[in-house]
């Protein structure tokens, strides 16, 4: 993904974050235009803050713009975030 915010902090997969952490969405690995666009329309655009509410055995629940989302097991490994 493009580095829009010129943030020098390295990115990491969402899967490595902990419950209660707030991170900045940086992008999705190997995502087609369609997926990136759809996520952006749901509010998951680069630079957006997201809070990790819960992590199940696979999927995560995150909070973005006041809504909660389930991100599936495959997604949490592909979504890249930056720690606050």
């Amino acid at each position, binding site marked *: 993904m493009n580095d829009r915010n010129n943030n020098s902090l390295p990115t990491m997969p969402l899967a490595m974050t902990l419950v209660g952490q707030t991170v900045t969405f940086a992008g999705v690995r190997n995502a087609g235009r*369609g997926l990136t666009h*759809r996520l952006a*329309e749901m509010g998951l655009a680069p630079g957006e803050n997201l809070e990790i509410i819960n992590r199940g*055995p696979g*999927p995560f629940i995150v909070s973005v*713009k006041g809504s*909660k989302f389930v991100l*599936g097991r*495959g997604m949490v490994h592909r979504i890249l975030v930056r720690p606050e």
Partner: protein
Amino acid sequence: MKDKHLTIALAGNPNSGKTTVFNAITGARQHVGNYPGVTVEKKTGSATHGDVRLDVVDLPGTYSLTAYSIEEVVTRNFLLDEKPDVVVDIVDSSNLERNLYLATQLMELGVPLVLAFNMSDVAASRGYNIDEEKLSELLGVPIVNTVGHKGKGISELLDAALASVGKTTSEQRYPNYGREVEPHILQLTELVEQKCSKQRSRWFAIKLLENDDETIKRLGQVCPEHIEELTLEAERIRKHIESICGDVAEIIFADRRYGFISGACTEAVTQSVERRHEHSDRIDAVMTNRYLGLPIFAILMYLVFQLTFSVGNPVVDAFDGWKGDLAGAVSGLWGESGADSVLRSLLVDGIIEGVGAVLVFTPLIMLLFLAIAFLEDSGYMARAAFVIDRLMHKIGLHGKSFIPMLIGFGCTVPAIMATRTLETRRDRLTTILVLPLMSCGARLPIYVLILGAFFPINIVLWLFGIFPVTNHALWLFLIYMIGIALAIICAKIFRGTLLKGEATPFVMELPPYRMPTIKGLAIHMWERTWLYIKKAGTIILAIVVVLWALAYWPKLGDEKRAVFEQQRTVVQAEQQADATQISDRITKIDAAEREAELEHSAIGRAGKTIAPVFKPCGFDWKISTAAIAAFAAKEVFVGQMGVLYSVGDDVDEESVDLREKLAAKYTPLIGFCIMLFCLISMPCMVTLAVTVREAGWQWAMLQVTYLTVLAWVLTTIVYQVGSRLV
């Protein structure tokens, strides 16, 4: 307004309470297309406001007007093609920013628009202070506060909607995309106006820049000679924008729209206390807990079925009694000589026994749909998808596929429609193929009939000391589990062979928990129950009459009748036997005659022809014909057994319960085999039709074939092994 007949379209995000507003406006005056999918089918209703008649269309819930999902395409095409007089966008006012995204797109599209700030009570309780007047000014759109489930603000909403009809949209604001992008949009807008369409030119330009396939297709139809020029120009501009802004064009547009919203909200919304979702969060801490999530899910499912049966069964028994009374009363009209009346047999043995056997189970179906409606409306369904995601992932699907499967416990048809929310065709096809294995409500009557006949009900244990667990509940649990297990195995096989491919990304919004309203539950339950009743009164009635006729004709020839008559005369003539012995033997001869008559009938002959195929499964010709008739609708199995065991019954004879007849005729092993076969074998006609429509002929044929073969093989194995063990 000359025309007092207007169309209002309701748009909105999923979970914005759109349905509650729709229900509040239209009440019971709703028309649903063939089947109400959870989100997709077009629902319409009517209402009158003042002296204006309104047609209200409930559009599918969408986040945007991009063409990524079928819902979005449906919504967009409706707005573009049907041109409703006014569009009401239902906005969850406790979650303004995300909900207003769709509004910005509607504004860009240039439709007459009113915003309903729904759930304004929730927003207030969360400490949001919204200055509607100011926001309305900033957006250039009227705003009305509503509380859908309490019916608050609905009249004001309709006032505002009627006032907006036919209004020019010039005062509506729309996002400004900034100085890097905006000049290029204007440039492309002009080109669209020159070459193609004066209407909605800005919207078309933006969509072209977003590389929206549907728009390219649509413009291609309007001006085929210029479409290439337009797409090339759009492509050039897009590259240019992307090189300047350093991001994909679609993302820039989405980002700026959110920026526009956030700008407006900063000015018009204040939050007095910082409280977000805390009520939902607390419930979620338990419901989606890593360790508790699955057990809670399992217990909830179990309770759904246990409650359905413990409440439903006594009512079903009462209905069954009334059915018997009705049959007796109708028979009584013919008196003693009625035994040979064709009309009596059609009414009593055909219609009352056949259709009645199906209708008697309505209370169970109703309760099951009520429970499913509760899970959907409360928001738990989405949590179940989260909890089950890991398991689903193992079979190559994801949690979202589980929602159609849960609906499948009610009826496979709406479940197949609900697969439209799945993004990829691979996921959809896999889910559709295994959906019939989720035992639907129409199969319930079969299980209940069989269990009642072969397994006397008793309480096996007390759960937590208060919930009685019956052996019937355990048997049912087993049957449902077999269905689920087979679905998992089959899905895994399909994903590994025909529908290979990587798992698709799973993103789903979790709605906040809400107490379902009685009205909402009642409407959801009723619209599905009504379909069941309607089916009984139409398709099933027709089939039952045909089956009855096939079981009634041709009659035994006079010679054969004479043989039975002679036997009776012989028995009666015997002096030494006492009266009871004689009457016993007569009854036996009567039964033999009835049996001979049935075997002589068209259905008897057809059944005998196909019976060898089902012999390995332990089925006689009667079960075989019923199993095949069940293709029309699963519950026909019960009706057909009712007819087969009723035709030829003597009028005067005390009508013996169908269950008792079955118990006398078959073993419990055969009973179990019937349940197993009905669970797995080919889906009903309606399911087949929907599968053809949604997936195509080849997939529908594959579904029918693999399920039927699987059913036959498994039932045969169980019967052959079982009969050697028992």
